[in-house]
C-alpha cells in the first residue's frame, strides 16, 4: 500500500500555502498531521496531484485562550492540546474526549483541526466542537470567514469548506462557571472508531446532548432544565432523539444497538454532566 505520485510543497508561509492551494484547485490537498489523510493516500482512496504540508508553519502553531474562546491552530497536535495544563478548566469536555482520539502514537502527530476538517461522523473532535457550540475559522488566499460548528458539518467527510480554503483554526468556548460536562463512547476496542459517542453539557438553564457515530454528522439536541433537574420524561426525549438520528446497520453494529446506546449513554452523560457542575 503506497501512495500514488504527487508533487510536494512545504510552504514558507500560510499565504504561500493558500496561493498554491488556489492554483492547484481540486487536485491539491493540504496535509498537517496526516493521520486520516495518509491512510487514505496509502490506500489510494485519494490521489492528489499536489500535497501542501502545513505541519511546519509556525503561524499555525497557535494555542491560546482569549476573549472567551480557546483557539487551536491548524498545526497543533491532539497530544499538545491534551497536555495543556489548563485544559481541564478551560474546556473540560476536550480533556475528557481527547484520550479517546485514536491512540497515543497517532495523537502525537494528528491535529485537532485536521480531525475537524476530515469530518468523520464518529470522530471525537467534531463532536466536541458541536457539543460546545464552537466555530471553525476558514481562510483562503483572499479572505477569512468563521463558520459555527452547527453549520460546518454537512455529511460524512463533507463540510462547507471550499477547495481553496484551509481550516486555519478551531475555537471552543471556554467553559462558563456553573456548567458541567461529560463524555463517553462505545467502540469495538479502545482507539477504534466510535460506534456511538455522547457528549453532554449542562449550564444553568438547559441540558444538551451531542451524539457522534449514529447520524451522518455530529448532532446536538437541547432540553430545558426543570427546577435545576433533567426532564422528568427524559427517557422519552432520548428515545425520540435516538430515532431522529436515523443511524444505519453496518459491520460494527446495528441501528437498533446504536439507538439503545443513545438512550443509555445519553442518560448517563447527562446525569454526569449535571452532577459535576462547577
Amino acid at each position, binding site marked *: *500500500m*503506497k*501512495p*500514488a*505520485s*504527487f*508533487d*510536494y*510543497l*512545504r*510552504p*514558507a508561509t500560510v499565504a*504561500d500555502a493558500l496561493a*498554491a492551494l488556489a492554483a492547484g484547485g481540486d487536485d491539491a490537498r493540504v496535509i498537517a498531521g*496526516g*493521520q486520516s489523510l*495518509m*491512510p487514505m*493516500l*496509502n*490506500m489510494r482512496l485519494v490521489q492528489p*496531484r*499536489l*500535497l501542501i*504540508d502545513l*505541519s*511546519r508553519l509556525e503561524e499555525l502553531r497557535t494555542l491560546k485562550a482569549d476573549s472567551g474562546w480557546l483557539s487551536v491552530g491548524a498545526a497543533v497536535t491532539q*497530544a499538545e492540546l491534551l497536555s495543556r495544563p489548563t485544559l481541564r478548566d478551560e474546556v473540560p469536555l476536550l480533556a475528557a474526549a481527547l*484520550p479517546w482520539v*485514536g*491512540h*497515543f*502514537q*497517532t495523537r*502525537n*502527530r494528528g491535529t485537532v483541526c485536521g480531525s475537524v476538517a476530515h469530518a468523520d461522523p464518529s470522530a471525537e473532535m467534531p463532536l466536541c466542537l458541536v457539543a460546545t457550540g464552537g466555530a471553525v475559522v476558514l481562510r483562503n488566499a483572499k479572505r477569512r470567514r468563521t463558520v459555527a460548528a452547527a453549520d460546518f458539518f454537512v455529511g460524512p467527510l463533507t463540510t462547507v469548506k471550499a477547495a481553496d480554503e484551509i481550516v486555519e483554526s478551531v475555537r471552543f468556548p471556554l467553559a462558563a462557571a456553573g456548567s458541567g460536562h461529560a463524555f463517553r463512547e462505545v467502540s469495538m*476496542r*479502545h*482507539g477504534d472508531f466510535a460506534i456511538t459517542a455522547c457528549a453532554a453539557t449542562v449550564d444553568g438553564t438547559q441540558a444538551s446532548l451531542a451524539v457522534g457515530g449514529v447520524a451522518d454528522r455530529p448532532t446536538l439536541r437541547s432540553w430545558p432544565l426543570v427546577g435545576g433537574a433533567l426532564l422528568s420524561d427524559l427517557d422519552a426525549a432520548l428515545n425520540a432523539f435516538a430515532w431522529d438520528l436515523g443511524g444505519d446497520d453496518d459491520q460494527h453494529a446495528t441501528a437498533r444497538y446504536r439507538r439503545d446506546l443513545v438512550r443509555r449513554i445519553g442518560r448517563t452523560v447527562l446525569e454526569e454532566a449535571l452532577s459535576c457542575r462547577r
Partner: protein
Amino acid sequence: MPPLKSAATPVASVLAADARHTVTVVLNGTPRTGQAHPRLLLSDFLRHELGAHGTRVGCEHGVCGACTVRIDGVAQRACLTLAVQADGRRIDTVEGLSQSNQGPTEGRMTALQEAFRRHHALQCGFCTAGILMSLSDYLGRNPKPTEEELRDMLSGHLCRCTGYAGIVRAVMDVTGQAAACDTRSGEAAHV
C-alpha cells in the same frame, strides 16, 4: 542537538513527483542522507534507503504500530509520515536503543529491553521494535504508569503472540512497580 539547516529553511519550490529529492535526518544520533520521491513513506525510507531494518512495516495505515519510531523524540507512525516530511528531523529507531549505552556497556540492551527478555514480552518479535519506541517516549512522560494507563497506550500496538501480559509485566518491572518475577516462567514469585 540543534536542528539541521534544512529544517530551518522551508522548501520554497515544489518537490516534483517524478524526481528523487535529498532527505537528511539524524538517525540515532548520526546524520544520514538518502534520496526520496515525495510519495515515499518514512518507513520505507528507513529500511530501503538507509538500511535501518529494525523498523517493521505492518498494516501501512497506522493501526498496527509496528513501524512506530521517534521523530524529534515523539513516538509516531513512520507509515503515516512521508520521508520528505522527516527532512531535518531527529529519527530514533530500535537500533538506537542499545547504542545509546556508550563506554564499557556499549552494545548492551537497555533495562527495558532486558525486562522484555526476562518476562517473555516478545515471541516472534515483529511488533517489538514499535512497542519499544513508543515506551521510550511514553515512560519519559509518565514514568510510573498504572496498568490501565499502560494498556491504554499499548492499544496502539497489535501483538498477536504474547497477549500483552508479558509486555505489561516487563514494563511494571522496569518501572519498579512489580513484585519480583520468576525469570523463567514469568510468574510472580512466592512471597
